[in-house]
């Protein structure tokens, strides 16, 4: 959010200058008078008028507020973690958006060298980073945003390979009639498997186990 403090001879003049510098109209800003100013006698004992002008958040569209806040938060955190990485908005959201009922997610890809450390085992570290970023953005903007983070396209690649895996295993289960249990996966990965096979004619899917050990079982129908 933009904020500025300006001094001038009168309050009106200071306000006008501040608005001009921020590129806002009077309705888009909050004006706080810090000092009314004194004219003094022949310039002696005079004090400038001082105002603080803050951009009024209400006129900025929610999407824009969320995006600015998300990028700022992410860049600050990556910086504080001593990671050399850049944040890009990913426009292809198909990997994390596969049901029309939910709001399209805002996806950011973090790119840089040696970022495996940011993904963690089974993407756990990435999940934590996404969780904290969402919390901060919700807290600061007041909107709960469907933010999704990725690192060097990791989730996108995972999405493709999980879909292939799901189809192959499903065909095999259908053929030989034996259920097959996949390795443990985080919730959003299991969801990809379930959704990929929802329409499959020969198998049904089910998740079993608790916490980190929860996994998908593909069974013949």
């Amino acid at each position: 959010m933009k904020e500025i403090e300006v001094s001038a001879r009168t309050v009106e003049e200071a306000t006008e200058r501040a608005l001009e510098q921020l590129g806002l109209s009077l309705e888009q800003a909050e004006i706080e008078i810090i000092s009314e100013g004194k004219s003094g006698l022949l310039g002696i004992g005079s004090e400038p008028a001082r105002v603080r002008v803050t951009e009024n958040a209400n006129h900025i569209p929610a999407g824009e507020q969320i995006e600015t806040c998300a990028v700022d938060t992410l860049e600050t955190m990556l910086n504080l973690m001593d990671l050399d990485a850049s944040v890009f908005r990913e426009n292809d959201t198909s990997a994390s958006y596969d049901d029309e009922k939910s709001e399209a997610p805002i996806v950011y890809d973090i790119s840089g060298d040696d970022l495996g450390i940011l993904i963690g085992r089974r993407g756990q570290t990435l999940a934590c980073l996404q969780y904290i970023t969402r919390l901060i953005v919700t807290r600061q903007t007041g909107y709960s945003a469907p933010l999704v983070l990725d690192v060097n396209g990791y989730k996108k690649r995972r999405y493709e390979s999980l879909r292939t895996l799901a189809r192959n295993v499903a065909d095999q289960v259908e053929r030989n009639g034996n259920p097959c249990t996949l390795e443990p996966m985080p919730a959003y990965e299991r969801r990809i498997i379930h959704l990929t096979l929802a329409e499959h004619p020969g198998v049904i899917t089910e998740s079993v186990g608790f916490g980190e050990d929860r996994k998908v079982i593909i069974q013949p129908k």
Partner: protein
Amino acid sequence: MKDLVEYIAKSLVNAPDAVVVTEETDAENGILLKLKVADEDKGRIIGKQGRIAQAIRTLIRVKAAKAGIKASLEII
């Protein structure tokens, strides 16, 4: 190490001015970070079943691993 915790904590609480992080170095266990927030903000830092605290710890570990040290976080 301190600044990362401080940034996250201040961004999540109602009273950012009450956020205090202290750092102690222990030869055996590396860096111990102690985070203090206003009483009514404790829930915002810990989260349901400690989920937020655990996520902050995970992010600290990334930074510590990069620096080749150990770090732990205590909320007091």
